[in-house]
């Protein structure tokens, strides 16, 4: 919790890198200052551009720690090549044994709790990485738990044999070919109708559509919202990040928000004083009022409830964006590309 959320940068050496599924690499880091990583934690790593590589000179990305061994001396990450991604996964896949790179001490946004009667871990695709260490810990604790993994094809999912061996019947795999697609409603009903429904925690990590479906089913089943656990750094919104414009008429300010930046960061860069704290869409301090909008709000916070989001009259500046749905995703590599679709425009009143 608090103590794990202080960012402390160090350096790590890549000591292993191998393909563990189609387009998925396992990368093992040996940090110079080892700190054990608790289940659910992640590290931020800074990825430099190689000679001639397009994009920013340095990209910072968060990846879950799949395994922390020997007091944190070996941290295993597992990264799927995203295409089109923002370049981070490509750079991770290019890492080679012996490379050194800046890495944070383990950070915790997704802590595994103590004291629930049952645990369900639900992973979609590569979201599996956030739940592997949790499952191992729950098994060691002798807890009542299940690990449910949903993915398109077996070939793109890492560690399947190891998970089956380690967790036996507690592990369930759903692909289109095996086990059929995940039935979210059935999974949530099983919690609601099972033992200790009020004291069962469900931890999930995966595509936003899957998580939205679980959230709806969880609310429909009247299960306690606090027992539904997810991390927010992976909230990818409903649309790919686009460039858009933000106007604050009262201050006479207009800023451009690039796909790699946020409204909050862009306003701050322009010298506007904006109140904010968590910077991940949770605390609600940066909520601003929408005066006018061209495009659609892409809410990425967990502060506003569904009704407030649907009303469209406010947003969390730290994470939420504007999208023009049928506009192609912008290519940050070349901003001069002529783009026929209009850019979103957000007109705000700031507190």
């Amino acid at each position, binding site marked *: *919790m608090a103590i794990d959320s202080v960012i402390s940068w160090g350096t790590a050496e890549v000591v292993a890198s191998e393909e563990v599924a189609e387009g998925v690499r396992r990368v093992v880091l040996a940090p110079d200052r080892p700190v054990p990583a608790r289940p659910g934690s992640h590290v931020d790593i800074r990825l430099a551009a190689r000679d001639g590589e397009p994009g920013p000179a340095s990209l910072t990305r968060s990846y879950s720690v799949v395994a922390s061994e020997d007091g944190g001396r070996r941290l295993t990450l597992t990264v799927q090549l995203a295409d089109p991604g923002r370049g981070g996964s490509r750079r991770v896949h290019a890492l080679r044994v012996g490379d050194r790179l800046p890495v944070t001490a383990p950070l915790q946004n997704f802590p595994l709790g103590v004291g629930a009667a049952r645990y369900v871990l639900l992973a979609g695709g590569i979201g599996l990485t956030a739940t592997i260490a949790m499952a191992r810990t729950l098994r060691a604790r002798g807890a009542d738990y299940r690990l449910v993994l949903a993915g398109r094809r077996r070939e793109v999912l890492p560690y399947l044999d190891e998970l089956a061996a380690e967790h036996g019947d507690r592990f369930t795999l759903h692909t289109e070919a095996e086990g059929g697609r995940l039935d979210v409603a059935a999974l949530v009903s099983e919690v609601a109708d099972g033992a200790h429904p009020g004291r069962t925690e469900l931890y999930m990590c995966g595509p936003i559509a899957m998580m939205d479906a679980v959230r709806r089913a969880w609310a429909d089943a009247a299960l306690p919202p606090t027992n539904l656990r997810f991390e927010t750094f992976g909230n990818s919104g409903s649309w790919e990040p686009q460039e858009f414009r933000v106007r604050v008429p009262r201050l006479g300010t207009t800023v451009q928000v690039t796909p790699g930046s946020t409204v909050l960061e862009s306003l701050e860069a322009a010298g506007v004083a904006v109140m904010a704290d968590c910077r991940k869409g949770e605390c609600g301090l940066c909520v601003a009022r929408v005066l006018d909008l061209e495009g659609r709000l892409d809410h990425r916070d967990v502060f506003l409830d569904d009704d407030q989001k649907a009303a469209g009259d406010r947003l969390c500046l730290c994470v939420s964006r504007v999208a023009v749905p049928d506009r192609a995703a912008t290519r940050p590599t070349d901003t001069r590309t002529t783009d026929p679709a209009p850019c979103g425009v957000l007109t705000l009143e700031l507190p």
Partner: protein
Amino acid sequence: MDTPPRSVTAKVFDFPRNAWYAAAWDHEVSARTPLARTIAGVPMAMWRSTDGAVSVLADACWHRLAPLSMGTIHGDELQCPYHGLRYNPAGRCTSMPAQRTVNPSAAVPSFPVVERHRYVWVWPGDPDLADPDLVPDMHQMEHPDWAGDGLTIAAGCNYQLVLDNLMDLTHEEFVHSSSIGQDELSESEFEVTRDGDRRVTVSRWMRDIDPPPFWLKNMRDKFPGFSGKVDRWQIIHYEAPGTICIDVGVAKAGTGAPEGDRSQGVNGYVMNTITPESARTSHYFWAFMRNYRLDSQLITTQLREGVHGVFAEDEEMLVAQQRAIDANPDHAFYSLNIDAGGMWVRRILDEMLALEGRGNDADAAVTALRPAANG
């Protein structure tokens, strides 16, 4: 071993965190009002849910760290006294003021807890290591063959000073001369054995001696009008980190007690479990259990009050000792032969600290300050 073991004569001994500690008597934790208690340096708030289960949370609200123990219990949940945030038994925040959602990050640490042997045990360290099988054996506390009761001493000293005290009972001759002390304590031989990773036993037999006042009274409770010599025993069972159960008693001299026949005697168990609160304060939970006249509440209360008086003499000494330690920062501890039991305890605790990557290095500085003066 490649390197000799570290010195373990630290005067202010650090405490392991990966261990079960008695945090409260079972009756102290209620569903009406939260209980505040600091265990191994960690302030905690404890309460009972509607199903009777005990929950233990860090005693600081996620929001602005107000002590939750000052709050109120609502059903299964604890409400912060300051802004009304509510927490479930797992430490998850379930409601926040003036907003429709609950920040999913909002939680306070929840500690593993086991209720056993009339105590509530908590594990302040890494929850993934909290194995309930490691709760110390104090079964006499709730076994039908035993009866008795106890109290808690808020001891103003480092916990290791209490452990040292209980692992060497020769002090009874000097500290408890009016009740259980007698010369034979320091005249008799004793035997020390370490058993595995977490246990030490110290045994002492005194044969054919006059019973001191406390034991004469107990003998007469079982054998009205008894007089004469007794064989007396003290078998001290330590279990890490802070539990010491002492098998004590006397039997008519020469009736075979040392060989295993205690039928002509009285047997008690002094149940002690010491929980560090801070570096210089401890929760000292104790009880005196006996295996005769089980139905006599009179004897239960007499024994509890009698031992309470005896332990007050220890407390006075321990607090004075801690004061002298703090007043003499440059002076080290030296050991005597009688400290063998306590020194094995220190070795075991030091091994537990080393496993946590910690040690008693603060005291190494004191050792370094002590040059040729004793050389």
